[in-house]
């Protein structure tokens, strides 16, 4: 029964068997993924919009779209990691605000002190403070979820409220503007352009590239996928489940903190209500891009494409002069549509 035909035996090195069919290349891997058809939908929408509205392809509008989606995209990269392990992070919107506020306040406080003498020292300290606040939030999430065993949904929902409350309490509701000798450099690195491209977009693409490398070519990335596929099995093989879980929550918070600080450069101020409600757009972007909330699936390409699709549609509605409130309705509808199409497609492929 294990007879392998001579032809198959000779090619056994490459793993080809005469009696086990292999799916055609376009039906497996990236080409069969939700990410791929959402990318096709995205291109189609962009082509249609460029015909409907001449303003869509104007450089001003494109730069606007690019910047808007980069903030969401960067955080989506981090949240995608959490979603792949089968978890969820609802606290990212609040984390964006608290990291931004911490960064701005520290920059105000250190300006006028001895640090002014050292070039860029004030800015580096305040960036570190902002990112450090984000890391602490991620550590709290990760330890409560991985070590204490609380549900990710409830833990990060609580953290959403705690962190947002802190943002209001610390600022008493007033927006905090970055000041000090390095403020121009700060605006350059958060809101500048390189060869006409907003830096936020460059950060997003570089981070997506790094994440892709980490997910597919390191042991950590493989363990992230293994946790989402079968957490019990992962633990039995000796993977330190706790460390991987704490790691993904810290990275998720860190991505939120980074994007929050970029938004300060864009807005010129860190208001306490910064990025309110963003967590839903971010999770929506991840899901549209192909991350599965039950865990085990997702990737940086999906995160970027999902975030871009939401922003392009939002932008399209603005250009079409449709009431902003309808945008919220439409984003919800797109999430359900993307999951529905995936469901129909998998039903067709597995009879």
């Amino acid at each position: 029964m294990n007879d392998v035909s001579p032809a198959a035996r000779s090619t056994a090195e490459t793993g080809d068997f005469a009696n086990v069919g292999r799916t055609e290349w376009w039906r497996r891997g990236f080409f069969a993924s939700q990410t791929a058809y959402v990318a096709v939908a995205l291109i189609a929408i962009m082509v249609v919009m460029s015909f409907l509205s001449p303003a869509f392809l104007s450089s001003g509008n494109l730069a606007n779209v690019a910047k808007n989606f980069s903030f969401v995209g960067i955080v989506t990269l981090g949240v995608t990691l959490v979603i792949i392990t089968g978890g969820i992070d609802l606290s990212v919107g609040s984390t964006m605000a608290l990291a931004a506020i911490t960064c701005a306040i520290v920059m105000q406080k250190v300006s006028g002190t001895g640090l002014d003498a050292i070039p860029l020292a004030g800015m580096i300290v305040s960036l570190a403070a902002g990112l450090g606040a984000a890391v602490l939030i991620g550590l709290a999430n990760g330890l409560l979820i991985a070590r204490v065993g609380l549900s990710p949904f409830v833990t990060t929902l609580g953290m959403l409220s705690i962190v947002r409350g802190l943002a209001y309490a610390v600022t008493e509701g007033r927006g905090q503007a970055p000041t000090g000798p390095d403020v121009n450099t700060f605006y350059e690195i958060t809101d500048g352009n390189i060869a006409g491209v907003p830096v936020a977009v460059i950060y997003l693409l570089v981070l997506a590239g790094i994440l892709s490398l980490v997910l597919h070519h390191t042991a950590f990335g493989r363990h992230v996928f293994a946790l989402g596929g079968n957490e019990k099995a992962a633990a039995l093989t000796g993977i330190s489940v706790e460390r991987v879980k704490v790691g993904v929550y810290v990275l998720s918070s860190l991505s939120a903190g980074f994007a929050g600080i970029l938004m300060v450069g864009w807005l010129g101020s860190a208001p306490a209500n910064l990025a309110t409600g963003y967590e839903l757009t971010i999770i929506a972007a991840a899901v549209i891009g192909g991350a599965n909330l039950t865990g085990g699936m997702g990737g940086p390409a999906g995160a970027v494409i999902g975030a871009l699709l939401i922003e392009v549609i939002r932008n399209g509605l603005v250009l079409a002069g449709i009431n902003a409130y309808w945008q919220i309705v439409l984003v919800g509808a797109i999430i359900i549509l993307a999951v529905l199409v995936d469901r129909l497609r998998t039903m067709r492929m597995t009879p």
Partner: protein
Amino acid sequence: MSLLVLEDIGKEFGAIRALSNVNLRIEPGEVVGLMGDNGAGKSTLVKIIAGNFRPSHGRMLFQDREVHFSRPVDARQVGIEVVYQDLALADNLTASANVFLGRELKRKVGPFSFLDHAAMNQRTAALFQELKSETRPDDVVRAMSGGQRQAVAIARTRLAQAKLILMDEPTAAISVRQVAEVLDLIRRLRDAGIAVILISHRMPDVFSVCERVVVMRRGSKVADKPVSQSSPEEVTALITGAKEAA
């Protein structure tokens, strides 16, 4: 030299005696069938050997050295691997990723170490060839048959250089053709000098692949004899208690 010796192993959970005074000897390369009704003590015994439980009393020797396992890792370190009934595989990963899960081969590039996909795929392909299983290293486990999944789980134990493999109901939920495949896998492990304890409810499997059958009833070993000197009828009688001991 016996591979594994259990002497007077017993286990109590509070007032409940799950296992009493079990003596068992496993030789290298031996395939032993472990049978018994639900609650007879099979899984308690297996969990003690695999390091999930500590015995309440008794001694355990592995390769003539006394061993005390407090965690499954301890058992794995001396060369005891378990193939679980639900196989403990990550469905969303490829065969080779599962085989190497937790012990990935890496390549250093400067300060970073990256997965060595080619080496892992090659080694996995060699393991499958050795097991004569038609399984591709880069196929995703989700799309595999029950027999192929067994091959992946067994390849994992081969990679670990196991000396004793405990298999918990490997043929419980798979098709007839796949059962034959799994039994072939067990014979190949035996040929490679690896001892197998096969926990099974299926009489034909035990009688076709095992040299010896051990029967448990109500926490005690009631029979331990070569398959050639027993019969499915006798084993059934021993399991149900129609026959006291053999």
